[in-house]
């Protein structure tokens, strides 16, 4: 038995105990945010992000997630607004290219719902975030993680200067995500 085979078998044996990173199907995954301008909800998409997920619904507390979002990939459908959003008053994507979430704990909320908690860093500022989500498994072993949570933009200095006024752009921004992981064997190193 080669070393590689032994490692592979070990992985299979250990799989239920420690959830392994699942490979993400980016074509079917989406991270969007909905900001509210003059009570008008407007959706924008973050077109580039990386996600590392390891989650087993039978052992949620072993799960972990790391999400990194390229803030320059923000797309609200208007180039004028996209340029403004990348600028210093908003994401300042030149100096802080990425937003990042690292889970430090995960738990089941019951009823097929789960929650990951951990630091969320945007524009160099870090606050704890609680991210509720659901997981749907299909027959092929693909998992779809979906959730919505709110971020207070001003906590992160998003929308400075004239944009601090929350009568025009509300403080609360909804982050929505759907991350699909394929049912292929985990690609995590043993």
């Amino acid at each position, binding site marked *: 038995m080669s070393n590689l085979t032994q490692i592979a078998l070990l992985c299979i044996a250990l799989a239920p105990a420690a959830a392994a990173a699942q490979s993400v199907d980016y074509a079917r995954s989406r991270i969007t945010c909905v900001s509210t*301008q*003059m009570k008008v909800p407007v959706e924008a998409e973050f077109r580039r992000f990386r996600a590392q997920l390891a989650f087993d619904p039978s052992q949620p507390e072993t799960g972990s997630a790391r999400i990194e979002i390229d803030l320059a990939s923000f797309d609200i459908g208007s180039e*004028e607004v996209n340029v403004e959003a990348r600028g210093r008053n908003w994401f300042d994507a030149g100096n802080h290219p990425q937003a990042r979430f690292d889970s430090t704990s995960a738990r089941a909320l019951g009823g097929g719902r789960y929650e990951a908690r951990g630091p969320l860093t945007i524009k160099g500022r870090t606050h704890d975030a609680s991210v509720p989500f659901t997981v749907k498994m299909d027959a092929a072993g693909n998992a779809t993680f979906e959730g919505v949570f709110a971020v207070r933009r001003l906590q992160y200095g998003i929308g400075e200067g004239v944009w601090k006024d929350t009568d025009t752009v509300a403080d609360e921004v909804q982050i929505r995500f759907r991350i699909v992981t394929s049912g292929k064997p985990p690609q995590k190193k043993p």
Partner: protein
Amino acid sequence: MTGTAASGHARYTGTAIGLHWIVVVLIVAAWALGLTMVDLPLSPQKLKLYSWHKWIGVTIFLLALARLAWRTAHRPPALPSSMPAWQSRAAAASHALLYMLLLAIPLSGWLFSSASGVPVVYLGLMQLPDLVGRDKTLAELLKQVHVVLNCALFATACIHVGAALKHHFVDRDDVLARMLPLVAPRRREK
């Protein structure tokens, strides 16, 4: 004598007169906001003006429907019998065109907003359904339609005002006075 009412000088009803002049004020306000807002740099002020412009547009649409409903129950006073037939036909046609534009212009704006991915939230209270999905090409087309229809409204309104002034100062009949608030129709001594 051309009047049909007992007084001999038929006027529009107070409701019809009120609605007419409210819509005039709203159209002028929507034009002023529209022409101002498009040239503003992106700012909270710009977002406010866009919202106000849309609220006014929805209001004009609703008032145009109310006017048409009122008009079916309260026929407008007859035009002077001295008017040439072609002028009566032109008056009827331009009034029909004005009503169509009062409905079509807000509708094109609503479609344009939907295609741009920005829902319309009337008065910041009631979110209208998106008529079409987000589509940049369609949005650009609808923007042109919105502009062209407004040019058509401006041209038709100029004819409308010109005709009213001609009736008042050249023909010296009651056509303008019957739509003026607080102005009694001319007394005809002869």
